[in-house]
């Protein structure tokens, strides 16, 4: 399973169109990193909640596979 890894500090992005077309896909985990309250207020369908403050403690519990494709989003571009 050795994959060449792009070790750049740059963050790969995902466009809205691609995200929208892959909502149903199980191979993509969509992660909402806003606080629980704003997640409850509204989120992209199928996305799961993992607030930034919980990442270190809970990420491994939620997503065991390190190679899992994950799309991360928050409230806005800031």
């Amino acid at each position, binding site marked *: *399973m050795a*994959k060449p*890894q792009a070790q750049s500090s740059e*963050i*790969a*992005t*995902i*466009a*809205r169109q691609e*995200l*929208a077309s892959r909502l149903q896909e*199980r*191979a993509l*985990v969509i*992660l*909402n*990193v*806003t606080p*629980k309250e*704003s*997640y*409850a*207020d*509204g*989120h*992209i*369908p*199928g*996305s*799961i*909640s993992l607030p*930034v403050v919980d*990442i*270190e403690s809970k*990420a*491994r519990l*939620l*997503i*065991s*596979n*390190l*190679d*899992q*494709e*994950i*799309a*991360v*989003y*928050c*409230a*806005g*571009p*800031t």
Partner: protein
Amino acid sequence: MGEQAVGLLRKLGYTNLRHYVGGMSDWVEHGGAVEKIDAPVQITTPRVSVNRETKNGLSCLELVADLPLDRLIGVWVGMIVAFGLVYWLAGLGMGWGLHVGSTEVKSDLDGFGTAMYFSFVTALSIGYGDVIPVGPLRILAVGEGIAGLLIFGCVISKLVSRRQEELTQEIHRTTFEDRLDRVRTNLHLVFSDLGAVQQLQAEQGALPDQVLRRLESTVRVFRGELQTIHDLLYRSHVEPDEETLESILANLVVCLQSLVELNSSLPARAEQSVSLSTGLKSVSALANEICGECVPRVYAPALKESMDQIQELARKLI
């Protein structure tokens, strides 16, 4: 915040990360569908039923003490008025009425006021001594004094413990909500993991060891969540609202279906690792106990139906 999150995840070792920069605001702006979680789960006050043995006269007092605050005050005032009426009527000719100094209080309107006044003063154990009971009324007055104090004590303790009760309730509610949240998220992950395994299998035929190991851990997580749901249905003294339960059960059905499908194409039981086969066995045992008729509470027909479905799937899993 998104970038910070990606950084944190990368530090934890995740490699396949992508950032949707626009976030929620961009999504909404371009008309993307939005899902919401409705108002927090409504949970009724957990009623802790105390096993109460009927012990002589005290059980009567406990019965009173269990009343809500407003009723309790009502009982207290009612009792004082009733005693007042008795004091007043006792003056009717029998010569047992209340006395002010050495003159008897008459059973007229004026006397009524005096009787009520005496009743309140007695119940509050003030006892000015300006109005005094005579004869058998003295026993009655002592009795009223005792009852008045006890009930008043209950009122005070209710007032004091009110805040405490609110806090406990709040703690119950938050832990409960947290637990349900976790169940939902984990079921979702189990489902996506099972899906991924299924996809791999479709592509490659037999499953490589690594995938089987992953399946093992997925089944373990699933088992844990199933246990929680099982507890929720059987033991919990807080009842989840039906909507939440419905979504959880629906998730559970989907996960089980996926697992059943997968199971039918797995290598024979003998070739499976011990951990996987025991995991599957306990999943099926737990799910087998979830059906509309066997859970202690009665739920809406739709919920019963999905519970029955869960049992049916559990039997297929063995």
